[in-house]
């Protein structure tokens, strides 16, 4: 309470908000403004492909260091996520998609913690939205291919073992949650955590800077130190959250696919 009043009393304290995510354009191509997250996003693909292509190229039975590291990530997605959730029968054809999702989200999240770069691209809602829509197309497409259009609709909306008038209530609910809301929640979960995390880091880093260097209030120095410590703590939390969000996005995508292609649920 005292901290908040101190901040309020000081003249011109920083107040990071959504505007801080709207970075000025680096350059313009025609009418299109190219911003930092766009460049980062494009670079992430280059980075991922370069790294993993180099890792996968030897394809040796006894892997070298780079191949081993690449296989660890690939095996984590392939065996730990895809096979466990889709089943060993037909998980193989979804592995590239899930691997791309995981690495793409992972790299674009960790941009937020890399010095100088320091901007999680996934905090711009357009990026996770596109990813969620593609995921939606993939799992619905896989389900329709497996069961046919009507068969898939029945598969997703009619819970097994349910009969009678209760279906009038259940079918719209299932349709809403399994078909309509999944891309929305996928998008919002990833976007919101990255957005909030970056906002927190901004708040505590700018706050610490302001309190330690520009404020003349007597409480400013201890508050600034506390703010800097919190910044470090939240950075560590973000390390965890950034991985978890990449993992959760991939995990949910694989679960949606697994459910869609399952014989009976």
């Amino acid at each position, binding site marked *: 309470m005292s901290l908040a009043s101190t901040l309020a009393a000081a003249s011109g304290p920083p107040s990071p*908000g*959504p*505007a801080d*995510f*709207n970075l000025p354009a680096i350059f313009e191509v025609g009418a*299109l*403004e190219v911003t930092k*997250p*766009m460049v980062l*996003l*494009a670079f*992430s*693909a280059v980075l*991922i*492909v370069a790294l*993993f*292509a180099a*890792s*996968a*190229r*030897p*394809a*040796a*039975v006894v*892997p070298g260091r780079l*191949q081993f590291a*690449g*296989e660890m990530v*690939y095996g984590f997605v*392939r065996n730990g996520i895809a096979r466990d959730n889709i089943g060993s029968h037909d998980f193989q054809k979804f*592995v*590239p*998609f899930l*691997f*791309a*999702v995981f*690495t*793409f989200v992972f790299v674009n999240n960790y941009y937020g913690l890399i010095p100088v770069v320091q901007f999680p691209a996934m*905090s*711009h*809602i*357009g*990026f*996770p*939205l*596109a*990813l969620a*829509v*593609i995921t939606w197309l993939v799992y619905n497409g896989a389900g329709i291919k497996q069961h046919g259009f009507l068969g898939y609709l029945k598969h997703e909306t009619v819970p097994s073992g349910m009969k009678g008038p209760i279906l009038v209530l259940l079918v719209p609910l299932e349709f809403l949650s399994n078909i309509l809301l999944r891309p929305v929640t996928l998008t919002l979960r990833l*976007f919101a955590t990255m*957005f909030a995390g970056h906002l927190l880091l901004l708040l505590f880093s700018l706050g610490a800077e302001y309190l330690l260097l520009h404020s003349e209030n007597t409480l400013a120095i201890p508050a600034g130190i506390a703010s800097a410590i919190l910044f470090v703590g939240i950075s560590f939390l973000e390390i965890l959250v950034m991985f978890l969000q990449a993992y959760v996005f991939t995990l949910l995508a694989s679960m949606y696919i697994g459910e869609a292609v399952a014989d009976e649920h």
Partner: protein
Amino acid sequence: MISTRLVAATEGEELNPLIPHAAEIVLSAVVFLLLLFLIVKFVVPGFEKAYKERTAAIEGGIEEAQAAQKEAQAALEQYNAQLAEARHDAARIREEAKEQGAQILAELRADAQAEAARITAAAHAQVEAERAQVVAQLKSEVGTLATELAGRIVGEALSDDERSQRTVERFIAELEESAN
């Protein structure tokens, strides 16, 4: 409400982070699909190939080891069988040798006994023959001697006992002389 916010966002005063930029959606989709394509083309085949080869190598190694073990087992059994056979053969040969030895010994013994008997018999026969010859010779000589002795005794005066005694003694001395 959304439209007013959109207006606000375009004006740059009150930004709503929930309103996506169309350019960003398109860019993200394009970059992601490109990434997916490149991963399908360059990343996944390598890793899958390594997995497959590793699995094959491990399974091949296990099979090889099992085959080798089976082979070793077969060889061991074969050796054991051969060893048993060899032992059996050795025992049989030893038995045969023993039997043959005993047989040879018995034959030798029989031969020796026969030889001994033969030699004894020959010796007996020779002794008998020599005795018979001596007896025959003695018989004829005793006759002659007796005749000669009788003649001499008769030729001399039978009344003279001393003389006849001397004649007998002389005869016996001659006889002994001739014998020597």
